[in-house]
């Protein structure tokens, strides 16, 4: 097996607390980022349609054109599908470009598929948001290394606002 995200930060953000591990039968949603194809060509297309000096400037692709270009290979789709079915995860949906797969499955199935992961419920942030995450790293079978980029919904917590109320500058201005 291999770890798709060995360098992803997995620490509890300040102000968040754990409410304990999830029941194995609870249901959760995971997002699988499937390996895309033709990324070099995609970069060339972006360059061509975005550069005013290019004859293709402004001739943009449709979503279907982009899907045609980057869609994962049939082998990737088949391999991932078989792996998920093997764990009983069948409630899955692809986006139009077929490079993201969202599955609804039980905690038990998820921890079976993503070895090492442990799903806990956490609460935090200004809105007392509740999230399900794993601070433990996850591993995937080596056979998936060329088919899955990463799995979303495990490690990254919701961001916090950085807006500030800063009267001090204005008031200082008024005083001066």
């Amino acid at each position: 097996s291999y770890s798709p995200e060995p360098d992803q930060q997995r620490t509890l953000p300040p102000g968040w607390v754990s409410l304990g591990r999830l029941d194995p039968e609870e249901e959760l949603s995971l997002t699988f980022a499937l390996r895309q194809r033709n990324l070099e060509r995609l970069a060339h297309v972006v360059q061509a349609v975005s550069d005013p000096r290019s004859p293709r400037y402004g001739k943009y692709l449709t979503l279907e054109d982009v899907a045609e270009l980057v869609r994962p290979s049939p082998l990737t789709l088949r391999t991932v599908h078989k792996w998920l079915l093997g764990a009983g995860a069948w409630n899955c949906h692809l986006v139009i470009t077929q490079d993201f797969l969202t599955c609804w499955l039980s905690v038990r199935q998820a921890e079976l598929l993503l070895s090492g992961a442990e799903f806990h419920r956490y609460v935090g942030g200004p809105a007392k948001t509740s999230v399900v995450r794993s601070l433990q790293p996850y591993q995937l079978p080596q056979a998936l290394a060329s088919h899955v980029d990463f799995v979303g919904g495990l490690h990254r917590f919701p961001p916090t606002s950085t807006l500030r109320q800063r009267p001090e500058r204005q008031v200082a201005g008024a005083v001066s």
Partner: protein
Amino acid sequence: LHLGVTPAVIRERYNLTARDVGSGATNNSQACAQFLDQYFHDSDLAKFMHLFGGTFVHQTSIAHVVGKQGRGRAGIEASLDVEYLMSAGANISTWVYSNPGRHEAQEPFLQWLLLLSNESALPYVHTVSYGDDEDSLSSTYIQRVNTEFMKAAARGLTMLFASGDSGAGCWSVSGRHQFRPSFPASSPYVTTVGGTSFQNPFLVTNEIVDYISGGGFSNVFPRPSYQEEAVAKFLSSSPHLPPSSYYNASGRAYPDVAALSDGYWVVSNSIAIPWVSGTSASTPVFGGILSLINEHRILNGQPPLGFLNPSLYQKHGAGLFDVTHGCHESCLNEEVQGQGFCSGPGWDPVTGWGTPNFPDLLKTLLNP
């Protein structure tokens, strides 16, 4: 004289006249997204426009909410995004991406990216207030998200990201301080928006750096060719460069542009709130102005702007007010004493090419 930034102050500073609004006769549209589990209330928008929208034709409701809008208290960031996107890009159909109600195990920002890959018809301009430290994200995640921005650029979508509110940022690597770049601000396939303040907070005058304005050099992405000349010029001419050990001089440099980020009035939960500051404010302002330019392009039978940076850098920032005074914050230590990069003539890693001068920017981008 003014007591803080309102739509009238924005429209005066950036030379938007009462005529500079959407025509209502095109398929033009814009969107804002924030991932803080915040709601906005249509009633706040209506109140805001009642208070501040008297001098320009505007819409007072959102055209499309993607995701679930809860009934909880409105969030100040969600309110700010909507109110200023619809003030700068006035009378243009506006979508809000709202992620409350998503499942607990989903990542809001990732769900937004899936939406982009699942909707054929999307607004042309997207303003997004979200950022994480580059070093906190896995490289596979960063690279994949960057590819999603390439997909959006290939489709002619303009992605504007706030540059962040921690200046150059700061962290300690093996006991030594370094600046801390932010992602997606550091992606070479988005347009990143920094922040400015008025030199005199109570007058509509020239702008200086807002010390919180995020900016710097990516540790993940190499410098894209479109900004090679501008950044090399800055690095060879800036008289205030920090020690080179603090940043990766060969990285993608950001921000690309800027707008006012200091002292906004916002209506949230029926209350008018002053002094709200952050690049989450400057981003929708810049996005709304690009929507107005798209309006003219569409009426002319031209395609929307799409990925803006190649045009922006080729034109050397024509149509933008150059911000040349002020520095942003960074590490509080003896060596740099809290000062990161400083603005200067032309492009700089604090305010990019500068802030929008609408009539000139329109001329520049109608015939790039």
